[in-house]
């Protein structure tokens, strides 16, 4: 019911209640008044019906007394004794009439009978004959009649008084009942008012309760919907996402991956020996195994990844975003390991395993079913290959993954086998044209591959601690070379690239110190080059940098301009040199020139020296000199070459460089 409908009904009910109360009270009042009047009327009519004949009788009797008295007075003087007798008879008649108007035995009736008797007892017949006693009799008779009259009058007055009192009593009773009626009416109104108010409350409460009920209903429905939605999307046994939900999630992830150009990985996990558990221990035990497996896998994954159950003993993990396909392999291994651990089921211990299929979405692909299918195929292959292992679906991926492992192995072998070597690129001081130092660049003489450039193996090495090994080797080798060169030119510096991983590791400071000691070179001649992005992304590294600077080592920010460092942050970076990335040096856009100038000025203002990388043409050099860039490095000045190319003497080196300059 809508609010307005409830309010309407509320007003209707209240209006009805008020109306009913008023009507009832009015009717009650009218009825009460009518009843009172009729009662009084009835009372007074009854009183009168009784009183009137009495009063009339007594009054007539009184009159006849007076007439008799008159007759007696006039006796012998115009009035005969017969007339007196007649009058006596008439008086007697009236008394006879009066007696029955009073209740038999009442005081009045008794009095009247007494009067009658006393009159009857008088010797009236003596008046018939004129004798000596006639006069006496006459006077006696008159006296008797007077007395009778007084008695009758007394009765009459008493009767009147009584009647009056009765009437007054009736009227007073009516007044009392009128008061009672007023009280009753007020009571009725109060009750009616109370009823209306209660009704109001009740109705208001009804409205409130109806609302609460509605809200409750909506909440229930909402939570029910939530529950249903949850149930629709989740497997009831394990509380993992169900097949439908998984496909939706995977599809959404793939679309996101397409937009963001990131990878999505899928692990297809098929439990090993699950059927055996079901068969030997029963379905209840099987359900418990599934639940434990689900919980373990759920705890294993990252927050953003999804674990789902496809059905039976098949599970899926969606990894998104996937930074590195190798992570999937690692994850798969962890999954297999955790699922292979014994599970307590009831009072037994159950051991199962898992076969895992790995699939990664090819570039821009958004077909979830296909990806799942790939992973499924891979899992099948894993099972066929002996269970308890992971297999990757994609051939190229597999090759790459296989290749990576091979490469890592080759690097290790190469390091041990001395297949690595360093080339050096001179850094030229622009003001003087002299070589201020060299940058060490690693090369690999790999059997069967020839001379391999660092960008083919350094990225792989950076995936693991292998890079630290490489860095250490480079440090050692470069510093040894520096020591040899310093015998010729003691002012020479050596710049060595340090990877972010190595910088972040705890051993960096010790490694550098050790290398310096072994080579017997003072720290001031060593420059560590660290890319801007590494410096920015690894705030923990600042502590290491400080420590390294305290050693006396110089810090150079490599590839500056490619990270997100603001110019202002330069003052906080514990660096000595700024190396402007080659992209700015070689860029034809007019803004690049201004940017380079800006970077040089900023660096200088913070006390940093500037080295321009990738100088390949003369016309790139000139503006740099104009912008008071300190040093430069590039193919135009000198290509990286093995150490042997720069001996025997530095002066020769500087001479050749000067030639080049001109």
């Amino acid at each position, binding site marked *: 019911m809508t609010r307005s409908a409830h309010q309407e009904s509320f007003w209707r009910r209240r209006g009805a209640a008020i109306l009913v109360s008023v009507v009832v009270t009015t009717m009650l009042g009218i009825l009460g008044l009518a009843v009172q009047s*009729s009662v009084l009327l009835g009372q007074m009519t009854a009183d009168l019906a009784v009183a009137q004949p009495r009063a009339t009788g007594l009054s007539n009797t009184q009159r006849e007394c007076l007439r008799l008295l*008159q007759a007696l007075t006039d006796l012998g003087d115009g009035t005969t004794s017969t007339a007196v007798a007649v009058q006596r008879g008439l008086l*007697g008649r009236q008394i006879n009439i009066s007696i029955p108007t009073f209740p038999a035995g009442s005081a009045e009736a008794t009095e009247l009978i007494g009067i009658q008797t006393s009159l009857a007892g008088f010797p009236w017949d003596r008046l018939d004959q004129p004798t000596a006693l006639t006069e006496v009799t006459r006077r006696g008779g008159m006296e008797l009649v007077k007395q009778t009259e007084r008695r009758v009058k007394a009765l009459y007055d008493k009767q009147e008084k009584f009647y009056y009192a009765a009437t007054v009593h009736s009227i007073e009773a009516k007044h009392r009942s009128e008061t009672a009626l007023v009280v009753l009416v007020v009571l009725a109104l109060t009750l009616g008012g109370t009823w209306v108010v209660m009704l109001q409350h009740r109705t208001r409460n009804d409205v409130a309760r109806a609302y609460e009920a509605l809200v409750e209903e909506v909440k229930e429905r909402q939570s029910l919907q939530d529950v249903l939605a949850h149930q629709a999307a989740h497997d009831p046994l394990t509380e993992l996402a169900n097949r439908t939900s998984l496909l939706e999630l995977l599809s959404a992830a793939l679309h996101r991956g397409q937009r963001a150009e990131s990878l999505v990985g899928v692990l297809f996990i098929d439990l090993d020996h699950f059927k055996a558990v079901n068969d030997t221990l029963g379905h209840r035990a099987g359900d418990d195994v599934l639940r434990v497996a689900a919980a373990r896998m759920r705890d294993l994954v990252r927050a953003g990844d999804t674990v789902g159950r496809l059905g039976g003993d098949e599970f899926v993990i969606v990894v998104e975003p996937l930074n590195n396909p190798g992570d999937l392999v690692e994850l798969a291994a962890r999954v297999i390991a955790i699922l292979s651990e014994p599970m307590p089921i009831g009072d037994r211990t159950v051991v199962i395993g898992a076969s895992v299929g790995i699939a990664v979405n090819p570039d821009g692909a958004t077909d979830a079913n296909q990806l799942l299918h790939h992973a499924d195929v891979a899992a099948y292959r894993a099972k066929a290959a002996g269970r308890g292992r992971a297999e990757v679906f994609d051939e190229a991926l597999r090759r790459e993954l296989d290749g990576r492992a091979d490469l890592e192995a080759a690097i290790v072998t190469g390091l041990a086998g001395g297949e690595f070597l360093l080339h050096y690129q001179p850094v030229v001081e622009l003001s003087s044209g002299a070589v201020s130092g060299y940058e060490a660049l690693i090369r690999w003489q790999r059997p069967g591959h020839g001379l391999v450039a660092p960008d083919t193996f350094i990225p792989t090495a950076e995936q693991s601690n292998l890079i630290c090994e490489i860095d250490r080797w480079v440090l050692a080798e470069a510093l040894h070379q520096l020591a040899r060169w310093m015998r010729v030119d003691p002012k020479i510096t050596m710049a060595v690239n340090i990877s972010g991983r190595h910088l972040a590791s705890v051993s960096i400071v010790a490694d550098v110190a050790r290398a310096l000691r072994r080579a017997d070179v003072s720290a001031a001649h060593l420059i560590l080059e660290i890319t801007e992005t590494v410096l920015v992304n690894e705030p923990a590294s600042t502590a290491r940098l400080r420590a390294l600077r305290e050693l006396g080592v110089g810090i150079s920010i490599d590839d500056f301009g490619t990270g997100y460092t603001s110019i202002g942050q330069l003052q906080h970076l514990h660096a000595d040199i700024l190396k402007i990335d080659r992209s700015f040096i070689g860029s034809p856009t007019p803004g690049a020139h201004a940017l380079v100038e800006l970077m040089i000025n900023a660096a200088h203002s913070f006390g940093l020296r500037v080295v321009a990388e990738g100088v390949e043409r003369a016309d790139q050099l000139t503006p740099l000199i104009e912008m008071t860039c300190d040093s430069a490095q590039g193919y135009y000045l000198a290509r990286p070459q093995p150490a042997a190319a720069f001996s025997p003497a530095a002066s020769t080196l500087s001479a050749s460089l000067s030639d080049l300059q001109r």
Partner: protein
Amino acid sequence: MRFPHRPAGTGHRRTPPRMVVVAVAIAMLAACSGGQAARPGLAATPASVPAFESVAISPAVLTAGDPVPLPASTVLTVRGLISVTNDGDSLQLGTDTLDQLGVLGVGMYEPWVKKHMSFQGVWLADLLRIAGVEESATHVRLVALDDYEVDLSLADVQVGGIFLATKTESGAPLPIEEGGPTRIVFMDHVKAGENAGQWIWSLKELELS
């Protein structure tokens, strides 16, 4: 000395003034409440003369047309539009002559003493026939010893049930105390006798007009 003239029909009683006021007030109240019980409808009296119970005591000696002898002492005088007279233009009746009309015994409820009483006497209609009431007469006026008057229409008299009582139940002369020497009584349920004021007693005179 006679009391001031009272208007006819007020009965042998004078209604006290206070009573008049109260009666008027009650009448008004009754009118307001609107609940005055309707008087019993003028019940259609049967066209035929109802038979009234009477006991024959002595047979009639005089019949209509017979002259009526003058009584020793007059008890009742009849005058007016009559044909039978015995004293000038009036008819004097005594206890004997009344007896000669035939004596019947009747009983009814007497409203003044409020009890059933029996009387002996003659139907008023019979008396008037003997008196030779003329065709043109319509009313009879009855006057009592205390000058109380009652009018009866001859039509009502013809309907019957109006009795002239002359003796007590036992045949003794009716004392004045009991309404004698003669009095008019009405049989039960006779319309003319509904008003107790019509029950005139101690008659002295009848006048036909």
